[in-house]
């Protein structure tokens, strides 16, 4: 299914009753089986946008819809991978991955097999009975990814999934995510503020302006797949990242000087 974001806007009211416009008017679509990155400086409302698409936050105006052939079975429209992992500390790795399946009413053998399949896919076998606090950051986010993949959503939403990880782990996890994407062609909308990360992974990069967030440009990435780390020296890679940096450099500078940067988490 494709996701259409149509004239979505979001205004928050702060404690003093003033209106803060987080999203101006955003239009874009993510095609089925596409890997799209949503890129913007901090505080541009990209996580807000993702929450709206996930149905976790109402939009002030506009709408989001999914169109196309309905996914088979009881698959949900979206599943989210959170920046802070959001694993349930009282559930083992296996039980965390099963959560979405429980809520979908998938029981018995199917639940066991699906859990098994996505634990294997994300390299978690042997860790099924561990609790989250016993795992490293990278392993925890694997659980987050396995949990979201397991419900086989129409669109997988990833909210800066690797930004809480150290640089080396992040590189490895990006590689693994690309590998999983090659195998599953799961439609992905990937939020990040890292240009290299966006260009390396995505088919298209939607560049958002700073608050109020609006689409500055949609940049296609013409690097061939499967992507390899070596491609980060490729002229196409360099040109694409330069072009995006040109778009948001002034935005990022302005954001740096902004004395009331309200990140989405603090609202």
């Amino acid at each position, binding site marked *: 299914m494709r996701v259409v974001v149509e004239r979505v806007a979001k205004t928050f009211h702060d404690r003093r009753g003033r209106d803060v416009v987080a999203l101006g008017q955003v239009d874009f679509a993510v095609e089925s089986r596409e890997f799209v990155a949503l890129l913007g400086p901090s505080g541009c409302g990209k996580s807000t946008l993702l929450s709206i698409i996930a149905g976790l936050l109402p939009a002030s105006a506009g709408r989001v819809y999914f169109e196309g052939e309905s996914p088979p079975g009881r698959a949900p429209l979206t599943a989210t991978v959170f920046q802070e992992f*959001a694993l349930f500390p*009282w559930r083992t790795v296996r039980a965390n991955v099963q*959560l979405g399946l429980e809520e979908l009413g998938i029981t018995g053998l199917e639940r066991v097999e699906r859990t098994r399949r996505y634990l294997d896919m994300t390299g978690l076998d042997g860790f099924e009975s561990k609790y989250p*606090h016993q795992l490293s950051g990278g392993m925890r986010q694997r659980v987050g990814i396995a949990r979201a993949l397991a419900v086989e959503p129409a669109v997988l939403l990833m909210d800066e999934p690797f930004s809480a990880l150290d640089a080396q782990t992040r590189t490895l996890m990006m590689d693994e995510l690309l590998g999983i994407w090659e195998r599953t062609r799961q439609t992905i909308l990937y939020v990040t503020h890292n240009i290299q990360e966006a260009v390396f992974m995505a088919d298209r990069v939607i560049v958002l302006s700073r608050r109020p967030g609006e689409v500055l440009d949609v940049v296609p990435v013409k690097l061939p797949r499967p992507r390899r780390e070596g491609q980060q020296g490729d002229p196409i890679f360099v040109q694409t990242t330069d072009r995006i940096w040109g778009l948001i450099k002034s935005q990022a500078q302005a954001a740096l000087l902004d004395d009331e940067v309200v990140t989405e988490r603090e609202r």
Partner: protein
Amino acid sequence: MAVERLVVVDRTAFLHRPDYRVVRVLALLGLVVGWELVTRTGWVSSLFLPAPSGVLAEGLDMARSGQLFVHLMTSLERLAWGFGVGAVAGVSVGVAVGFFALADAVVQPIIAATFPIPKIALLPLLILWLGIGEASKVAVVALGVFFPMAINTYAGVRQADPLLIRAAVSFGAGRWSVIRKVILPSALPMVFAGLKLGAGTALLLLVAAEQIAADAGIGFLILQSGNLMETTKLMVGIVVLSLLGVASYWALGALERAVIRWRHT
């Protein structure tokens, strides 16, 4: 000029807190031995403070005659009922008030108004309503347990991580799923803190109730022995209460470790 060599020393040494395990045991032993000496040497008349050896002998005697058992079981039965009813009601109300805004608006002011009442002051009223039998004693214990349980559970529910609630909802969880799979497990550590607080309150109220209106139970045993100047029996009652308190605290700790596995493994 002489060349100096300055070796770095640990400047935090005075902040260390060693375990002193032996001292812990010795302190308790010292108390008992000191107590024994004070009475053996005749400093204090054994009518006012019987020696620990005498208390132990009397306790064994009472256990053999079955007298201690009767009082203990009577008290334990009241405790179990009162504690159970109070805890279940407290957790239920705490979850409801913590999760549903309407329940919060209705119940919060009522709890704020009734919580400061010393529960033992309600015993005469409870006796009037429920009679002088077991029900009024169970009710006063239950009331004493209810408030710390409700207030702690409420705090635990309010502390539940909003991110985890969002995550559960994003995976399709509805209201009851969120309560069962996120809110309750999040609140468990606070629930156990409430149980430990409640256990102390329960013991206090039980003994007070048994000294006001009862014909059996540890509280009754202590009061009656005092009236008859049977100080040794009185001390047996007090030691049993101390053991009950320690045992309940230990049992709740063990239960907590068994239930909240994810924090201890």
